[in-house]
């Protein structure tokens, strides 16, 4: 193997760019799993749903996928709030979330995926946008815009989420519901309502993440499966529900994956995040920035 500096630099840069995208994908899970303790294993399926929404609108009206995704967030919010309502009534209220709640989301994952397969087939779909083709060059380093744009928008999204969580009333209530539901109830706030809102936001981020995904690579319905373990690995590594932790962990896994696929071949890359996950769980389950 010939070691070259620009190969290394490029691998690191593309790792950071893909890490930004991973952060957007994981932010929803950090919110649902990290803060609300809802193991939404179907999150990647909703991301694929977001990709297909972006694809349909782009193919029929030619609207930019990110703009579409932002417009579609209320729809995803409503979907998320609806799912939480079912989840709450059927599982949380009965105290069965650990076994049957997990199975419920696992079932949702397959229902979403197979419905997409039956409707759209297993062909790869892609979108058109002005920034998908070109690449910026800085010396030896390449910055493909189709990676850069999702990364930047994703960091903006996470900054916005962090602001909402720390500065607004709803956001603080969401953080509080993670700590002590009973106390929240004593403050005359309905924890179920807060959780419903939070889960709605969590699914709403899937709309954007889906648009990023289809900008970065062509999408077919079962692509989401690759992300299930990865998002949870990032979420756990980042410290369960800490958004800054999520960004750091996402960048870290992005960089290591990118280095692995550059120097050892892409077939080894999937094992990286899972290796990280197993290692984190075994050594430090609280994650990098755990509470």
């Amino acid at each position, binding site marked *: 193997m010939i070691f070259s500096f620009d190969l290394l630099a490029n691998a690191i840069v593309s790792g950071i760019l893909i890490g930004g995208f991973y952060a957007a994908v994981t932010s929803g899970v950090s919110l649902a799993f990290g803060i609300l303790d809802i193991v939404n294993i179907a999150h990647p399926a909703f991301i694929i749903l977001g990709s297909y929404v972006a694809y349909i609108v782009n193919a029929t009206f030619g609207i930019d996928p990110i703009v579409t995704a932002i417009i579609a967030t209320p729809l995803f919010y409503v979907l998320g709030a609806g799912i939480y309502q079912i989840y709450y009534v059927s599982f949380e209220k009965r105290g069965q979330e650990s076994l049957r709640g997990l199975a419920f989301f696992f079932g949702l994952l*397959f229902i979403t995926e197979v419905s997409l397969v039956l409707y759209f087939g297993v062909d790869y779909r892609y979108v058109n946008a002005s920034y998908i083709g070109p690449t910026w060059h800085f010396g030896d380093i390449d910055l493909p815009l189709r990676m850069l744009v999702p990364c930047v928008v994703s960091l903006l999204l996470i900054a916005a989420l962090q602001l909402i969580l720390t500065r607004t009333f709803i956001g603080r209530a969401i953080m509080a519901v993670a700590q002590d539901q009973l106390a929240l109830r004593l403050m005359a706030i309905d924890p179920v309502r807060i959780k419903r809102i939070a889960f709605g936001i969590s699914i709403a981020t899937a709309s954007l993440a889906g648009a990023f995904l289809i900008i970065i690579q062509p999408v077919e319905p079962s692509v989401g*499966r690759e992300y299930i373990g990865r998002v949870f690995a990032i979420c756990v590594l980042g410290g369960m529900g800490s958004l800054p932790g999520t960004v750091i962990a996402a960048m870290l896994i992005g960089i290591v994956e990118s280095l692995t696929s550059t120097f050892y071949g892409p077939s080894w890359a999937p094992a990286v995040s899972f290796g990280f996950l197993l290692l984190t769980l075994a050594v430090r389950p609280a994650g990098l920035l755990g509470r």
Partner: protein
Amino acid sequence: MRTPAFLVICLVIAAAVFAGSLAIGNDYVFFAGYVILQYVVLSTAWNILGGYCGYVNFGTGAFFALGAYSTVAIYKLIGDSELPNVIPIPVLMLVGGVVSGVVGFGMGYLTLRLRGAFFSIATLALAVVLETLVVNWDFVGGSRGAYVIRPEEMPLIGNYIRYLFLMMMLLAVGAITIARLIEHSRLGYGFATIRDDELAAEASGVPTLRLKLTAAAISGALMGMAGAPFPYYIGFLQPSSTFGLDYAINSIAMPLIGGTTSWVGPLIGALLLGSLQQIATVTISSAINLLIVGLLLVGFVIAAPNGIVGLVRAYIRRKPTGLVGRRRLGADAAGRAPGAAPGATP
């Protein structure tokens, strides 16, 4: 019923099913039946950890594939020459079972000390790590997959698929007997305490970690045993299809639809869902299978959390004897009538 008696009854039923399948005279029955029996073993195995202890394992595919790839490894080691005459299927099952059991134990040791959700996520991760290893391991075929040549005939039995069917049938009987044995033993009561309240169990002196590790090892071993004959059944083994989530969803859906608290549930669920899928594959398409499974799973966990077994038990409880039951139902209807009347009459 004592275990030996139970085992004898199971074997008699198994013999009857095998004789019945022979009587039909079409080997397709064996091909379809093999898959259903395989699901009986997988869902029973999943239920030992998932149903009895309450820990959700998403890695059924991984344990199954470990069993299958142990067979491929042995096959490649020995060379293509007359393997089934050298190493019979039960030995392959044993090897696959040991490999998967050890991995199940190690996996459990890493993650079972954490909350249940972490274990579930780690099993997902395990599947991908193992898949990556196999994809990069050229000896067992790598990403191209591996061909395993199925012998044509088996002495005394005839077509080789009948032999595979018979072996899987025996494994299913074994798995069900083990599950039933666990259920009525100290081990099973220990598992139940973990499922109901792990903290209380730990506080009362139940060795929870040891029990969970036992469950993970038994469950993993049975899954590996179910996977061991699979290369001979399918002929061509590919990492992406063997490690996939399709086995996971089935082995979770079947116990939850049947009922997780006893050995009957996974059996009913596997027979029902397995047959349904075979029918759907023939009549509609195999893509619709997973949709059916997903919808049934979601429907059952919401509407009938205790599965078919739970529904039947509730039905029996509601109606201890015909007369009392009827009177109580009548009283219910009468009690409801006044409240319903204002809305019902215009």
